[in-house]
């Protein structure tokens, strides 16, 4: 090693020392890392699993392109004859073309010699002659090459002239016969012709079979990719539902339910129980409530809706009971656990979840009716809009929405009774709600006033009496009925 190299080498060592961490860091990173590994191991040992990995893999699967299935089958198409690629120098040997049969042969002969696709007439004339055995392939090539069009194209084709000349001699009177006889004896033309007929027939049959098989493959691939798409949609919907459930549970576990941020799970249950008892005492008996809800049954019946019905804020489930008595299939969503517990004996299908979160987990166009009785007055305005949008999304076209809520036009309700429920937010004005429902995309909206107060002392037709009657004794509730637009309704 020269001095120069030694100096350079020292400089290299110096450089590397400077970059790699010099001296011991005060922090023991290895200890931190093993602490992290232990924490993850404890998590696994405690049986806590994370949905993240499975979800990410699912998304990866769902993102794969199923159209590849159909493309794959195109590549694997049956080909009985090799593909013909025209030579750029217009120079062929007869063998290049004789390797093709039947339709492919005529087609490729046109492309090679006339540099175009055959016209329908030419194609069928040549095919007919070939299949009958009157022409052989040499005849076809000679006809095309020595036609005026073929001469203009000046394509060189080796090995054609000699056999073509012999074949053309057959057509010269007298000599032709002699020649054909001589050649014929040597080559037994009749035998050859019949053999040729069989051969061409066979090839035509095979061609048809191959086509049929290719069509089958294509339709199978199409069905497969449709099936895969459907499975994907189902997997997505299931994931969304599980995800909504996870979020609800996580929110409950961590006490971060909107509006109850500081409440622990236990505290939440205490509140739920309190409200359930309050409802039991003041909302009226289940029979009374069922009676009031019967008014909506004809709406569903007339529309032929007997399944895929969801009731938001179903409470003790009176409406679900009524529907079950009709033999219809319905389920409810209720966030109050104590309320659900109250109906446990009935075995109704009720999910404990936040209505909006639950709706978000449902696939679109999956329900035929969504109902909400005395529910919307509990939610904030912005959430109401979100709810309507989600309902519109999950309803099938032509699906039904029914919303019932207290009528503030009855002053006793609006000024007084409404506030008997501490969880009520604000009364909704009938025309306002009607407008909002229409504005969020529902059609054929109806506003119905329900449950008038009985025993009004203001019965006479005078103006003052009528006004008092309407202020104090008119309908206690009103309902908005709307439909998701469908091609028939629009």
């Amino acid at each position, binding site marked *: 090693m020269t001095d120069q190299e030694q100096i350079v080498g020292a*400089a*290299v060592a110096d*450089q*590397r020392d400077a*970059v790699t961490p010099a001296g011991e860091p005060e922090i023991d990173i290895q200890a931190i890392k093993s602490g992290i590994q232990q924490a993850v191991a404890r998590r696994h040992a405690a049986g806590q699993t994370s949905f*993240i990995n499975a*979800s990410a893999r699912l998304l990866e699967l769902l*993102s794969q392109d199923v159209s590849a299935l159909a493309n794959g089958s195109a590549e694997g198409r049956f080909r009985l004859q090799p593909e013909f690629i025209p030579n750029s120098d217009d120079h062929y040997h007869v063998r290049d073309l004789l390797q093709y049969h039947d339709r492919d042969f005529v087609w490729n002969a046109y492309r090679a010699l006339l540099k175009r696709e055959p016209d329908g007439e030419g194609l069928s004339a040549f095919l007919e002659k070939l299949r009958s055995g009157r022409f052989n392939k040499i005849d076809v090539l000679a006809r095309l090459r020595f036609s005026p069009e073929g001469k203009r194209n000046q394509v060189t084709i080796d090995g054609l002239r000699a056999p073509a000349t012999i074949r053309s001699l057959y057509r010269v009177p007298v000599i032709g016969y002699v020649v054909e006889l001589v050649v014929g004896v040597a080559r037994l033309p009749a035998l050859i012709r019949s053999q040729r007929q069989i051969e061409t027939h066979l090839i035509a049959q095979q061609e048809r079979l191959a086509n049929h098989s290719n069509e089958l493959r294509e339709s199978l691939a199409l069905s497969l990719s449709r099936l895969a798409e459907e499975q994907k949609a189902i997997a997505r919907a299931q994931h969304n539902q599980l995800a909504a459930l*996870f*979020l609800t549970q996580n929110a409950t576990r961590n006490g971060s339910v909107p509006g109850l941020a500081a409440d622990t799970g236990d505290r939440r249950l205490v509140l739920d129980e309190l409200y359930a008892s309050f409802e039991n005492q003041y909302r009226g008996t289940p029979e009374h409530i069922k009676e009031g809800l019967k008014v909506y049954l004809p709406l569903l019946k007339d529309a032929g809706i007997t399944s895929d019905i969801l009731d938001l804020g179903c409470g003790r489930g009176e409406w679900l009971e009524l529907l079950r008595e009709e033999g219809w299939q319905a389920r409810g969503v209720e966030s109050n656990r104590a309320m659900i517990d109250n109906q446990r004996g009935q075995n109704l299908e009720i999910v404990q979840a936040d209505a909006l979160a639950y709706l978000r987990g449902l696939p679109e166009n999956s329900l035929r009716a969504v109902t909400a009785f005395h529910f919307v007055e509990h939610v904030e305005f912005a959430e109401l809009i979100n709810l309507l949008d989600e309902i519109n999304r999950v309803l099938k076209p032509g699906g039904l929405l029914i919303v019932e809520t207290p009528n503030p036009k009855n002053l006793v309700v609006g000024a007084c009774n409404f506030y008997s429920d501490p969880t009520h937010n604000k009364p909704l004005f009938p025309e306002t709600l009607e407008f909002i429902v229409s504005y969020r995309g529902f059609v054929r909206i109806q506003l119905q006033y329900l449950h008038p107060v009985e025993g009004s002392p203001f019965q006479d037709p005078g103006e003052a009496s009528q006004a008092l009657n309407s202020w104090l004794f008119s309908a206690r509730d009103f309902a908005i009925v709307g439909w998701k637009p469908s091609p028939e309704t629009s």
Partner: protein
Amino acid sequence: MNRVAILTSHVSTGSAVSSDVLGMRAALAKRGIDARVYAESSDLQEPKIWPLGEIDDFLKEPDDILIYHHSIGWSPALGLLQGLKCKTVIKYHNITPSSFFSGISAWHEEKCREGREQLQAIVDAGCDLYLSDSEYNQEELLAAGADEFRSFVVPPFHEIDRLQSLDADLGMLDQYRDGRAIVLSVSRVAPHKGHVELIEAFADYHHYHNQNSRLLIVGPEEEAFAAHSRRLREMVQFLLVEDAVVFTGEISDAALRACYLLASVFVSPSKHEGFCLPLVEAMAAKVPIVSHDSAAIPETVGAAGIVLQDRDAELMAESINLLVKDEAMNVQLGIEGRRRYEKHFATSSIETKFLRALGNLN
């Protein structure tokens, strides 16, 4: 040492390549050396970027120096390195393996493949000096046949001091200073940068450790990777962290400064880095790092953070959790990062390494 020309394909405001090229020029100019930057294209006003065609008027003496900054496939470089009668230096910034772009962007795939081929051609032609951003890059040069005794590691010049001296963007501070723990990631959104793993790890952290948390994904998104960007957003939705993940896109330096001030943890799950400047930005800002053991990342991070061997979402989530919860450790790693920055990556330190390496030309 007479004149020095620093050559690269393109110079643009704020890119890591430009910071390095301009930093080299400034270090030389400070010592009275006539140094110019030559590039095919540029959007800079100051300093002047010289057109390629004039480079042979500038480099005339055998003692003049041409430094070629190699970061992507660019064909004129080899000709100039071979054609000019002066000393030649390559500064190797590394090139992302083209396989990361396969089926995603044909342009990137081609440019990166070309860049790797040109690296080999440059080494085959021979340079007087081989400079690398990191040991990792240097290993690649040596593997290509570079002379070990003429190879030196010089970390890239940067503008971190300027970034550190900026007033943080108040809008950004106000928007995200709401008590939620901030996990920060800074890099362009590209397939090799590991955003898929980042989102998985954050979702695990958010759902199982701390719902009072937010992930800021800072960095420009390119049209060429639009499908990748869409995929990431779909993933955010699928993993139920829509309310907690923010894609900021490209942001101002003042906003970036705000992000480093807000961050509890800096995460880089990148799969390939020749150096990774944002890691050094995080160190300078005393933000502890969580990252994966790939390419040059471990040597850049040193003891300023946790470098995980396995690419595993739960491990990464647990690491984030530890650094958010254990305040003392967070501060300790932050201080270690700052110490490491000042010792190895401060501009003065890089200048010394750069000039000492050039001294080997004589």
